[in-house]
């Protein structure tokens, strides 16, 4: 516990709690029209008392749009990482535990998938399925799976070689019980570390996909989409890009800070 209490860990964790709280509660507290109400007389106004982050090209309040965008951006990233863990974890454990031919075939495929840049894979899947929020989640989830599977496989391989696994086998434990009781619990710390770091990458990926128009679609709003919309007004209204950009940066920074500390504490390879 003590090792979590570094300044970096505490700041990162506090920021994550605040941002997640905004993601969950903002849509419940803020009336939706605060972010969607268009006022043509208030187009592209710089930050002021009434509009702390300024207004966008349709006269909407950027402050509320950034707060509400947290829900979409975090939701997509979280669901995508959940998908990649749900696929990557069994794949990695089976590969690392079974070894031999199963491992060879699975890892050959995973290695090949790793040759595809994750963003390219996600963009292609999203474009092929047709851009929408569920498809964005599927696309990012699949694109991140090979990386997770690779890392979990390495850890499962390491854990499988431990003396206590050998002892359990000598005691007559079958494969299912072995994986459930001995391998999985010892692989989980690494999974938590990697999931935290992947979450940061997933937020960047969602922003990238939405920025290219192949992620979240209007009228939904996400940070990436806001940055995309701001492109045509950069000369006259740079704040339209800076506010959502800063939101992405702060979230990813918090996840990375906390992820670094988690890794130092939980990852056996870092000790």
């Amino acid at each position, binding site marked *: 516990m003590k090792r979590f209490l570094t300044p970096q860990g505490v700041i990162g964790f506090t920021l994550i709690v605040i941002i997640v709280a905004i993601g969950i509660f903002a849509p419940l507290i803020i009336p939706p029209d605060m972010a969607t109400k268009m006022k043509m007389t208030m187009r592209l106004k710089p930050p002021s008392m009434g509009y702390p982050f300024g207004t966008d090209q349709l006269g909407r309040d950027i402050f509320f749009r950034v707060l509400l965008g947290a829900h979409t951006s975090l939701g997509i990233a979280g669901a995508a990482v959940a998908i990649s863990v749900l696929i990557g974890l069994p794949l990695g454990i089976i590969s690392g535990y079974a070894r031999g031919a199963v491992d060879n075939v699975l890892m050959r495929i995973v290695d*090949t998938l790793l*040759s595809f840049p994750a*963003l390219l894979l996600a963009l292609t899947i999203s474009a092929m399925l047709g851009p929408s929020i569920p498809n964005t989640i599927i696309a990012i989830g699949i694109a991140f799976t090979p990386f997770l599977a690779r890392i979990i496989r390495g850890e499962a391989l390491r854990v499988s070689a431990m003396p206590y696994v050998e002892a359990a086998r000598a005691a007559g434990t079958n494969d299912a019980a072995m994986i459930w009781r001995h391998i999985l619990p010892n692989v989980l710390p690494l999974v938590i570390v990697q999931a935290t770091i992947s979450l940061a990458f997933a937020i960047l990926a969602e922003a*990238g996909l939405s920025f290219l128009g192949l992620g979240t679609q209007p009228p939904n709003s996400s940070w990436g989409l806001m*940055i995309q919309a701001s492109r045509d007004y*950069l000369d006259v209204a740079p704040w339209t890009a800076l506010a959502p950009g800063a939101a992405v*940066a702060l979230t990813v*920074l918090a996840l990375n800070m906390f992820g670094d500390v988690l890794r130092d504490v939980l990852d056996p390879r870092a000790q």
Partner: protein
Amino acid sequence: MTYLLNRLFSIALTLWLISVITFAVTSVLPGDVAMMILGTQSNPTALAGLRQQLGLNDPLVAQYGRWIGGMLTGNFGHSLVFKEPIADLMAQKMKASALIVVMSMAIALICAVPLGVWAAVHRKKWQDTVSSSAALFGISLPDFFWGIVLILLFARMLGWFPSSGFTDPSVDFLGAIRHAFLPSLALGLGLMAHLTRVTRSTMTGILNQEFIRVARAKGLSEQSVVWSYGLRNAVGPIMTVAGLQVGYLFGSIIVVETLFNYTGMGWITYQALLNRDVPLIQTSVFFIAAVVMLTNFVVDLLYLLVDPRIRMQ
């Protein structure tokens, strides 16, 4: 020699798998190429005719065979959007992207290695905090956001560099560099942050080792202990990570090239995806994955040259 043969076989197998995965992702998913060419308002007879002509009614295996057969004989087909042979497009666009990938890698390495070494040498002092915080901040910003900031600063406010476009280096070399500079910097900043972190952790590990203590005990200057004893041992790991980052770069160029209207691989892949130009999507996705895989192979070979200890095994 056996090693090399093994690797060559493995490359051929991986290239084949890349082609299967690319084809699977782009063909199994819904979407009608014939309708994309003729438009949604076209008459059913014309659609059926074109489907027949393009061989879209054939089984998937036959379609795959035709695609891979064409690739092996250098016939990549025609782009539906650009109405040009895909082979010509790939050759031009790869060249454009190679320029920014190399430039961004150079920018990243030139800055990251000294910064990372500096942080490792002054571990847990203010220098380390400054360098590590900057790196952490750097990896947290999306590269298209860097791109926007760079456009605002260097193109709009200062006017030092053009904010969009591409110039062929063989026509106007200086112009090409000027056009490629901002996109390369946008890509390079995130990469630099990542490589700084890698250099720092690798160097920290190395500087704690026995042979460094011996070198210091021999009375060598700190300069030569760090740079010629320490860094020399860090080159391999840094190079490997830099090689792996080429994959990341080829993903990021899609966003950055689009932002800067820089007509390279990323830009054309995006155009293909937006217009669902399936033949062009298949070939460019295949090429990007193949280039990433081959780069990592070359890095592995370079590792052998840099680190004789690996060769012995």
